[in-house]
């Protein structure tokens, strides 16, 4: 897979293979993910895009029966090397899930849980982190006067924004989003996409999405996967106007599922 070198790459995936029990889920993945841009992973259900995403912060580690071979470089560091501190990796590479995972504690504590995990306990520092993280996802104005209410009182869209705020609160370098809008209504989806655009100024964003429109609207770089392999990876505009591979063309025009 050739990629143009006009980008700075934040993550380099080098011949990554993943087996889950007897299934060969990812087959020799080579991929470079550009820094401070939004990269979308698209492809039909079961093509391995979520699995690939989870490889980037080693969330597959918690599943039993998973074997991973190959290298994933974050900057210059191989995140699958033996001496890697996984908790520190996950601080640098944060993740937002498909269903919003708002913890059943207060809004404040939801966001504060991220810095607390990494040892911040000073009240003033936490206050600042909570406020700035909520502001960055555009949720501050809506929740400023009810920070100590349960996070479960928020709407689903707000809960997803809260989850993004929580990830930002641990000051990551990369933010992974696993179909973050699939449980949300169109207006919440639009808000999240706007936020992603803002966030990409400071963070490298990787999003898995089922929606071609979302990939086309909201991403700079698109990766098309099929049956555990990368078929095509190029700037979003190119992929949606002049796909090189016929399978890509079939998928984005809706002829392949």
């Amino acid at each position, binding site marked *: 897979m050739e990629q143009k070198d006009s980008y700075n790459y934040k993550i380099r995936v080098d011949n990554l293979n993943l087996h889950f029990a007897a299934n060969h889920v990812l087959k020799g993945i080579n991929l470079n993910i550009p820094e401070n841009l939004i990269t979308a992973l698209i492809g039909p259900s079961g093509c391995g895009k979520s699995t690939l995403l989870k490889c980037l*912060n080693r*969330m597959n580690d*918690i599943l039993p029966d998973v074997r991973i071979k190959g290298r994933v470089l974050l900057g210059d560091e191989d995140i699958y090397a033996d001496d890697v501190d*996984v*908790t*520190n*990796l*996950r*601080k640098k590479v*944060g*993740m937002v*899930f498909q*269903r919003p*995972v708002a*913890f*059943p*504690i207060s809004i404040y504590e939801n966001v504060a*849980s*991220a810095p*607390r*995990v*990494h040892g911040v306990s000073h009240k003033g520092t936490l206050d600042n982190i909570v406020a700035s993280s909520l502001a960055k996802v555009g949720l501050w104005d809506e929740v400023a006067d009810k920070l100590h209410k*349960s996070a*479960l*009182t928020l709407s689903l869209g707000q809960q997803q924004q809260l*989850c993004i705020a*929580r*990830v930002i609160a*641990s000051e990551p370098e990369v933010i992974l989003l696993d179909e973050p809008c699939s449980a949300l209504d169109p207006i919440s989806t639009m808000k999240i996409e706007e936020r992603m655009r803002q966030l990409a100024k400071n963070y490298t964003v990787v999003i898995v999405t089922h929606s071609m429109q979302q990939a086309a609207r909201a991403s700079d770089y698109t990766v098309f996967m099929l049956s555990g392999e990368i078929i095509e990876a190029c700037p979003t505009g190119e992929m949606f106007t002049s796909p090189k591979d016929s399978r890509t063309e079939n998928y984005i025009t809706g002829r392949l599922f």
Partner: protein
Amino acid sequence: MRNKETLVQWILAIVALSAIAVLALIIIFIFKEGSPIIARLGLTKFITGTKWSPTKGMFGIFPMILGSIQVTLGALLIGVPIGLATAIFLAEMAPPRTSRILKSAIQLLAGIPSVVFGFIGLVILVPFIRQWLGGPGFSVLAAAIVLGIMILPTIVSVCYDVLKAVPPAYREGMLALGATRWQAIKMVVLPAARPGIIASVILGMGRAIGETMAVIMVAGNATKIPVSPLEPVRTLTSNVALEMGYAIGEHREALFATGIVLFIIIALLNTLARIVARPEKV
């Protein structure tokens, strides 16, 4: 066909009502037998009186109320931390096989008759306390330890179920933030499980306050207010069980009145358990 249906409905209704009727009769009976003496002595005098001396007509159950509270709190102090820690280990950390085996072992604990707990307390715990800590050995401490072990199955199994009911997404969400497993448990899983954990404590409390046989065997049963955990103590249930066999007249009434007080305490605990175990309103 239609008639048969009606018949079945009636039979079930009668069975259900008779179960409730038995409960109602018990309550009526206890109150009928016990309330005259409370009326005669005055409720305050009955529950705050410190002298229990049936032969002299003195019926103060304050030492027993205090005894029940001390023994129960002691049991909770011992049983809750151990039970909760066990549940956390079984639900969150142990490999599934280990967890299954240990869980059935703990459920076995629930099947041991209380007299056996009392007997082991009597022959091992009481002499141990007498020799190493002083006092007669029959004591608040001995009763609390025995009860603390007896409430473990309740605490462990309720806490285990509650922890297992916490959505896995919460743990995953914490791990994805870079939390260790313990951090995930401490910061999110336990707060999410809190109402259920409190309910388990109250159920354990109900079990401890109602237990009689094992307590009688190790508590010493003196009717005075214990000033140290090494002194003997008598609980409300012990009081009824020990004296009912030979009590007549006013004495018998006073024992039923003890039952009324116990009944009210347990009813309050059950109500409390229902309130805290309710899912949090959003």
